[in-house]
């Protein structure tokens, strides 16, 4: 049974169709990576699922419940934007515990959850730092911990590796994959870099012109790309797979 189902989704801005009859499903505990060229509608799709914007048509079902009319705060969908949007006036602890404060968690329980997350993302000792004192990779981990602290039903990651410097990117990528598997959280992740998409995704959905063109496991995508556009998009992976 799919954890998330999107059926016949449409979204236009003025006369420009951004999402065009898009359907997709994500299984529980799975990481689905949405991949595609800039402007193909990836971020719009995330924002529609999140509830930040409303679709013109179509339905979004999370755990068998249509959520179209639910506001963001009631959807139990956590979101990590491209620039992480860590609250600059709060410490690492304040950021991670934000959702727990909203839910009126007791201090002790809040402490326990935040410290276990800090341990999981390997940022012990940095709880009192402000976001401007963190590196790109550290910010990404804090944003991830903040999103996971509230045990979301669905996690949305928008280009989680784009603000991470090249030197630490490989480690950050591995840690991100490890955390997502360990936490068993159903995730949709947007990535434009095929290398990131193949490293993070259990399945990869290739998007073009507001639609999903092909959705498969990384190995099937490599073996049987549906058309030349898909082949071109994942071309760097052929080179990498030959080299390994």
């Amino acid at each position, binding site marked *: 049974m799919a954890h998330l189902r999107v059926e016949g989704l449409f979204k236009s801005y003025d006369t420009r169709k951004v999402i065009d009859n898009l359907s997709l499903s994500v299984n529980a505990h799975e990481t689905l990576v949405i991949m595609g060229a800039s402007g193909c509608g990836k971020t719009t799709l995330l*924002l529609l699922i999140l509830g930040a914007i409303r679709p013109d048509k179509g339905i979004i079902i999370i755990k068998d419940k249509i959520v179209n009319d639910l506001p963001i705060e009631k959807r139990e969908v956590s979101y990590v934007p491209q620039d992480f*949007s860590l609250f600059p006036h709060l410490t690492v602890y304040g950021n991670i515990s*934000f959702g727990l404060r909203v839910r009126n968690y007791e201090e002790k329980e809040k402490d326990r959850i935040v410290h276990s997350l800090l341990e999981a993302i390997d940022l012990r000792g940095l709880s009192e730092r402000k976001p401007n004192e963190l590196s790109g990779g550290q910010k990404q981990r804090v944003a991830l911990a903040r999103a996971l602290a509230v045990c979301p039903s669905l996690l949305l990651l928008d280009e989680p590796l784009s603000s991470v410097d090249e030197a630490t990117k490989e480690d950050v990528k591995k840690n991100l994959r490890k955390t997502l598997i360990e936490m068993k959280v159903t995730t949709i992740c947007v990535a434009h870099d095929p290398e990131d998409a193949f490293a993070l995704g259990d399945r990869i959905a290739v998007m073009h012109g507001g639609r999903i063109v092909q959705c498969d496991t990384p190995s099937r995508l490599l073996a049987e790309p549906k058309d030349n556009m898909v082949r071109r998009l994942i071309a760097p992976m052929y080179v990498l797979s030959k080299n390994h």
Partner: protein
Amino acid sequence: MPKDNFELIIYALSFIFIAYMLVSLFYLYVAVGESLGQVAGVLLDTRVLGALTISASSAFIVGGLAVAVSVPVAYFMTFKQFKGKETLEILLVDMPQTFPPVTEGLVYLLMLGRFGLAYTFAAVIIAKFYVAAPFTLSFLTRRYREIAGTGYDVVARSLGADTKHLLNWVILPLSARDLLAGFSLTWARAMGELAATLIFAGAVPWRTEIIPTLVYLTSKDAPAIAMAASVIAETLSIGALLSFRWIAGGRKWLT
């Protein structure tokens, strides 16, 4: 040194403008210095003190009300999408700053005079509020839009925050300096407002007479009182404005 003749012209025009503004601002102190004996004699005049008390207290009340109103209204103007929003913003923020205050005073007199509000302290507040409150609203709306542009609101909501949490835990802490800057300009503008207050509230000493009306009414017959009132008000305004900016700027003096 200017790099060429064109830059020289730019510098010259800038200096003329700066001199004009600074002389306009500080000449009062020169004039007071020339009539120091007379001015000092009326500095603690009861009418001057009364006008100062009404001016400062009403300006603080107007500043506080402007903050209380602007916090939710700026939220509405930022996050609520509706037709005619730009026009409404012009009417709420730009118009009050350009609308003739004397006309506004007349509007209040016609509209609220029948309820017994004319020539009362409440009339002073109402008249000043229309002219001065938009400064705070303008500052806050701009800041809220910056915050919305960064996506903090979407992230906070995705973590379960409702509007109260979002406002109290994210938007307001990130807008504190803008709030104070808006308050300081509102306060200063309210201190200087004359026409609307004069028409709607009159100039009853220790009730509705404020520094600008006192200066207006005494400048011909009792210039020493007008100068004393002006110098107190100007010093207070400059001091308060710099202090507010100092606090808003993270307690660093302006460079």
